[in-house]
């Protein structure tokens, strides 16, 4: 149950080990890693800069993590989000969820990502080869993705 905002890269194996080593109550671990794609809307990008709202970011991430832990029986969870200038292929975000059973781990990870995408105060700016930059527009599908979490999960008790 922790959240971090950092410039440095993260190592997925290390993060999983930190959560799960020496524990035998965990049966399922799901990770989600978001990475910088080399193009946006068909045009190449050279870098992506992530701005955030220090203080509020950590508070929002802690809130969504607490909500996930209230909804699913999680053994452990982690959110790491990078800030600053990143390049195609770089890691942006990591979510890890661990539970006794797989559906809880899957659903909680997807829930965390859907909420993070719509609530955590991060903004992406893309730079193109010609030197121009633009802020990424919010996707309507991200708001729509939240709808499914309005009712309680069907498979959490399994």
């Amino acid at each position, binding site marked *: 149950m922790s959240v971090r905002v950092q410039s440095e890269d993260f190592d997925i194996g290390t993060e999983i080990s930190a959560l799960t080593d020496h524990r035998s109550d965990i049966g399922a671990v799901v990770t989600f890693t*978001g990475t910088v794609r080399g193009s946006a809307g068909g045009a190449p990008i050279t870098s992506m800069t*992530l*701005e*955030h*709202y220090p*203080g*509020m970011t950590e*508070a*929002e991430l802690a809130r969504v993590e607490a909500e996930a832990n209230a909804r699913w029986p999680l053994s452990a969870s982690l959110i790491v*989000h990078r800030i600053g200038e990143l390049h195609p292929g770089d890691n*942006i*975000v990591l979510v890890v969820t661990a539970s006794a059973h797989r559906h809880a781990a899957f659903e909680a990870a997807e829930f965390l*990502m859907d909420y*993070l*995408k*719509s*609530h*955590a*105060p*991060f*903004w*992406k*700016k893309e730079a193109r080869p010609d030197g121009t930059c633009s*802020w*990424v*527009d*919010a*996707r309507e599908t*991200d708001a729509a993705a939240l709808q499914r979490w309005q009712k309680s999960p069907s498979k959490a008790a399994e």
Partner: protein
Amino acid sequence: MTSGQNTNTITLRYFAWVREKVGLAEEEVSLPADVATVGELMKWLQARGETYQAAFAKPEIIRAALDQTHARADAPIGSAREIAFFPPVTGG
């Protein structure tokens, strides 16, 4: 209760293109008494000059946070110490 009391002074913070258009990341302002909600604050800011006019031209697409918690345009400012304005978030 002292003469130094100044309950109307709050910190405004701007992020992403709102910050770029306003030309500031943060500032202290004294709010007039008739600015009671987040939406009224955006209207008041619009009238402060060209950069604010550009940043808040379409207030319906701007999001706000009161003391680092998401707030809608009709939310009362109340005793908030920090109000932030920014585009819809795009992290993850």
